[in-house]
């Protein structure tokens, strides 16, 4: 549907091409594992976790939609076994989702000890980063990082872009110059999903703005907006429609050119990846016809 005049940088994540003009490469879908509610005792249910990863892998093969696994780490005690799990069961890159700075610091140290920094997409560099974390990251640098454009002070599109570019009024420097200074090689810009009523649409609007301004792979995780929707959570028919809504919202940023989607719990892969294959086919046909882009070889436009 759209094409960008700004040159778009692409990355090669060990065979997964990311970024570029809409329609060229399929959307990278990232499914998260070890959310609090996914398992009763995650450490004891690793076989189930492996099955979920294999299911996502299988769907990637069937649909030509590439995927990564995002591993959620809440506490320091979980770091070692969860990263061991990732290295044992995931080939190539994986994403590590760590809300707390203290946990992130310990993760970096552990990744350095086991020589795994080159496998990791660090999720995320954000407003909550501490000086200690920055120093640790400069010493031991993950290959890729999500740069989260969350700006609680100015949460319109411009405010989100400011956090990436120069930090706005909240940070001394923007996340992008900071990430470059740290030495990260792959920058994945996240437009930061917010709940309805908190400028939810701006996380969508920011997709073309980020791609136009920074020319870097851009994406988001709008499933968070669906999951925080009060009406839906109280709706008596929620169970029947939830996964459909949780999945379909991801179509919107991709239509505007988003390169990657964190689609939420990995058990939704059976819906999320075929859905994205369908959307990618439409976009690739349009891009080929209107803009003459060359759709990549590994793309649902060609394979299914």
């Amino acid at each position: 549907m759209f094409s960008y005049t700004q040159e778009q940088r692409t990355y090669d994540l060990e065979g997964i091409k990311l970024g570029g003009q809409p329609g060229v490469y399929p959307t990278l879908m990232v499914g998260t594992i070890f959310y609090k509610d996914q398992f009763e005792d995650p450490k004891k249910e690793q076989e189930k976790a492996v099955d979920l990863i294999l299911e996502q892998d299988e769907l990637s093969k069937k649909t030509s939609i590439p995927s990564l696994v995002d591993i959620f780490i809440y506490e320091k005690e979980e770091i070692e076994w969860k990263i061991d799990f990732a290295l044992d069961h995931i080939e190539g890159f994986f994403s590590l989702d760590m809300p707390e700075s203290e946990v992130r610091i310990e993760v970096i140290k552990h990744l350095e000890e086991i020589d795994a920094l080159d496998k990791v997409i660090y999720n995320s560099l954000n407003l909550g980063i501490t000086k200690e974390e920055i120093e640790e990251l400069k010493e031991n640098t993950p290959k890729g990082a999500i740069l989260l454009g969350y700006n609680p002070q100015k949460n319109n599109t411009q405010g989100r872009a400011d956090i990436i570019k120069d930090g706005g009024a909240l940070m001394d420097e923007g996340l992008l110059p900071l990430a470059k200074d740290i030495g990260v090689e792959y920058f994945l810009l996240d437009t930061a999903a917010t709940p309805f009523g908190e400028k939810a649409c701006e996380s969508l609007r920011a997709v073309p703005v980020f791609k136009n301004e920074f020319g870097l792979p851009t994406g988001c995780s709008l499933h968070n907006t669906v999951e925080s929707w009060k009406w839906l959570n109280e709706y008596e028919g929620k169970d029947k429609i939830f996964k459909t809504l949780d999945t379909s919202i991801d179509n919107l940023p991709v239509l505007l050119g988003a390169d990657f989607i964190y689609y939420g719990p990995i058990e939704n892969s059976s819906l999320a990846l075929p859905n994205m294959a369908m959307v990618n086919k439409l976009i690739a046909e349009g891009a080929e016809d209107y803009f003459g882009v060359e759709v990549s070889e590994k793309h649902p436009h060609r394979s299914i």
Partner: protein
Amino acid sequence: MSELYPWPGNYKIGNHESPVAVVTLSDDFDFDPEKVAIWGPMKTENLGIEKVVANVLSNPNIRFIIVCGEEIRGHRSGQTIMALIENGVEKNGRIKGSEGAVPYIENISIEAVERFRDQVDVVNLLGETSKKKISEAVERCLNKDPGSFGEPYTALKIEMKEENVLEADFALHSSLKISPWGEISSMEEK
């Protein structure tokens, strides 16, 4: 009379004359509506706390906030609201002493935050999930009710002024130009 609890959220309302509000964090407890003014979960260390602050300010009878239930992992919302009451905020809106991921107050004024801190005392039951123990804390608060804090205070949401897009000559965003063919480029400087 000003509107009670003007900010929407996932909460339940009881007796507005009660001095007690209960933040249940990740849990979803219920309380005797005669004894508690307002209660509900609170997920985030920024927007969630702002809603609690604004709604508590709308009812000056509320003088205690009981923070209980399992902490929100990652966000540390329970620790953060207690840090807010204890320490307040820095000039840039960051909640002092918070261990949360992005602990910022941005949508309500510093004045409102300071009034909130003066109005309420916090009861720290972080991690407590025993209904009996929480109910006992409610009773203790009821027994030492210092009375109303005065007039209700309306914490207005700070809204950013946006351009009137109905008059604008752009689509999607003021920084973008989209050709009739769908080609996106930067809007030229005017």
